[in-house]
């Protein structure tokens, strides 16, 4: 499998500019491209796939310059948003298509092997419109692999999938890396999917590269409110929220720890209300069980904060208006400094 490198690529679409951007992709690695809407994620994928011209910089595959190569000559499997399945062809003929195009002498066995691998054999004669979302994803992937790509570039896998199919997809993508050793680039809004497949995160913001980091450092040092939310921080206060927080003791304490872009911390551990301890005062606004225990919303000064009761909590949920005390683990407070962590 190939190594891919993008050196300072820049792309312009209408008034939008992306880049300059560096990327490196080795065999068997997966990169998740994340960022708020309008960050340029799809633009980046379409430029890599050859559907938008790269205005400056170079794209290399194993030292071969692909910057100006047409899409069909890049050896790159692009799965667009919505998957791009051929509505007029059956599942079998979708998967067979790249083999036909390549002029493979006897395309059927290879296509059938892919159908088997992705559990599509019983659906071989159906049209894509007659498949579930999860089945369509498997067809898209089988078809992409039929072209024997050197890189798979997938825009929004997992979009509009139910919980089961989403779980399935994680396994399929992991397989792709481990078995086929094809490097993968995914654009995703789904943190669970991203953290389950990606070795590296590329965070874009308004057309610029904000951060390239592995999962661990992304989780430890989120530079912006967006990244902090993506990394699952339940309490993310951007700079305006911190400034608006009033002049209470907790707000002042927090402001002292915030970076230029704000501050983030995990859900606060709240001891059982009948044994209150902790440095700060709060009032329960809402309490609700969720898969991780019992989630509280508490008000402290003018801030609404996410908090958690101990997992083993079995008494009735605390009533709205009841008072609690809490501590903030000081090593868990992340200033958002807007720049990539060292």
């Amino acid at each position, binding site marked *: 499998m190939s190594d891919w490198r993008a050196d300072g690529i820049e792309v312009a679409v209408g008034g939008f500019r992306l880049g300059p951007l560096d990327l490196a992709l080795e065999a068997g690695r997966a990169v998740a491209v994340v960022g708020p809407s309008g960050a340029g994620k799809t633009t980046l994928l*379409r430029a890599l*796939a*050859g*559907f938008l011209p790269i205005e400056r910089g170079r794209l290399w595959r194993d030292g071969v310059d692909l910057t100006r190569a*047409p*899409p*069909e000559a*890049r050896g*790159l*499997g*692009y*799965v*667009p*948003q*919505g*998957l*791009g*399945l*051929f*509505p*007029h*062809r*059956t599942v079998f*003929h979708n998967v067979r*298509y*790249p083999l*036909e*195009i*390549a002029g493979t002498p006897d395309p059927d066995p290879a296509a059938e092997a892919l159908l088997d691998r992705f559990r599509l054999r019983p659906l071989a004669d159906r049209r894509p419109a007659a498949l579930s979302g999860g089945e369509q994803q498997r067809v898209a992937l089988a*078809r*992409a692999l*039929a*072209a024997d790509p050197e890189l798979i570039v997938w825009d929004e896998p997992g979009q509009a999938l139910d919980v089961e199919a989403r779980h399935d997809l994680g396994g399929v993508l992991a397989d792709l890396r481990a078995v086929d050793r094809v490097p993968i680039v995914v654009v995703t809004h789904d943190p669970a999917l991203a953290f389950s497949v990606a070795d590296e995160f590329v965070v874009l913001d308004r057309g610029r590269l904000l951060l390239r980091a592995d999962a661990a450092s992304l989780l430890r040092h989120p530079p912006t409110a967006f990244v902090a939310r993506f990394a699952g921080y339940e309490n993310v206060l951007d700079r305006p929220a911190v400034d608006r927080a009033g002049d209470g003791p907790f707000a002042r304490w927090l402001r002292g720890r915030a970076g230029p872009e704000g501050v983030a911390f995990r859900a606060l551990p709240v001891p059982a209300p009948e044994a209150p301890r902790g440095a700060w005062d709060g009032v329960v606004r809402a309490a609700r069980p969720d898969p991780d225990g019992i989630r509280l919303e508490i008000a402290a000064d003018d801030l609404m904060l996410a908090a958690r009761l101990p997992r083993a909590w079995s008494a009735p949920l605390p009533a709205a208006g009841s008072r609690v005390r809490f501590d903030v683990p000081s090593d868990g407070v992340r200033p958002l400094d807007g720049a990539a962590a060292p």
Partner: protein
Amino acid sequence: MTGGPRTDGRPARGIAGRLWLGLGAAASASLLLLFLLPIAALLTYAPPSRLLAAAMSAPVQQSIALTLYAAALAVLASALLAVPLGYLLARHRFRGRGVVESIVTLPVVVPHLLVGLGLFFLLAVPSTPLHAAAAALGIPIYDSIAGVVLVMVVVSAPYTVVASQLAFQAVDGRVVEAARSLGAGPATAFLTVTLPIAGRGIVAGLLLTWARAVSEIGGLLILAAYVFPGGLYSGPVANPISVYVYELFQNGNLADAAAVSSVFLLIAFAIFLGVRLAERTARLPWRSGELLP
């Protein structure tokens, strides 16, 4: 119905609702009758023996053959000229696109007699350069097969332009991009993905073009009421069928006008339904996209 929940899944309807529904149904029925009754009147005016005689008459057969042949050429020309224009309008943003779209609808809104007159002044008046050019190439326009096809193309090709534009617009660009990324060059992607997906809409447009072409009379009365052999036509002198019927009617020959019209109507219907049926049931390459070996 007295009380109890309704189970047919339709909303309950009050008196005003029923009144509106009744008015709507009456309006629809009137219009449908207006479509059907004239055809029924036409088909039943002449006795069946007269229809049979018309069907067996050589001039009628020649006229119908000429009309179907010219319409087929017009459809072919539309496929070659109008489908690319539809694609251009569907896939490309360019300056003057709105102007082009307006020009496409022009032949539909201009009375067809005037279309015929325009073509006459452009091509059939001996003093014009285009007439000279056509004559130099040995292509007669006036009262010739070229004249018939020209009129038919002008008045009927817009339907194929619009239908294929809509059909190409409905093809998801991402599907085409997926094909490119799977190894298809632009031409292969067009032939194996874009065209098969748009095929149905294009065929529907060509069918409309054909129907419009065979029914043309206004322009033909001016430019090619008679067709003499020459160019792509080697049959005997004949009228397009619409002109033929019109002349029977003008001469007061009502029974023959009805009989000939009926014969042509039945043939046209049969062709129309045959194409629709074939398009719906046959495993045509544009439906499965299996254009590749």
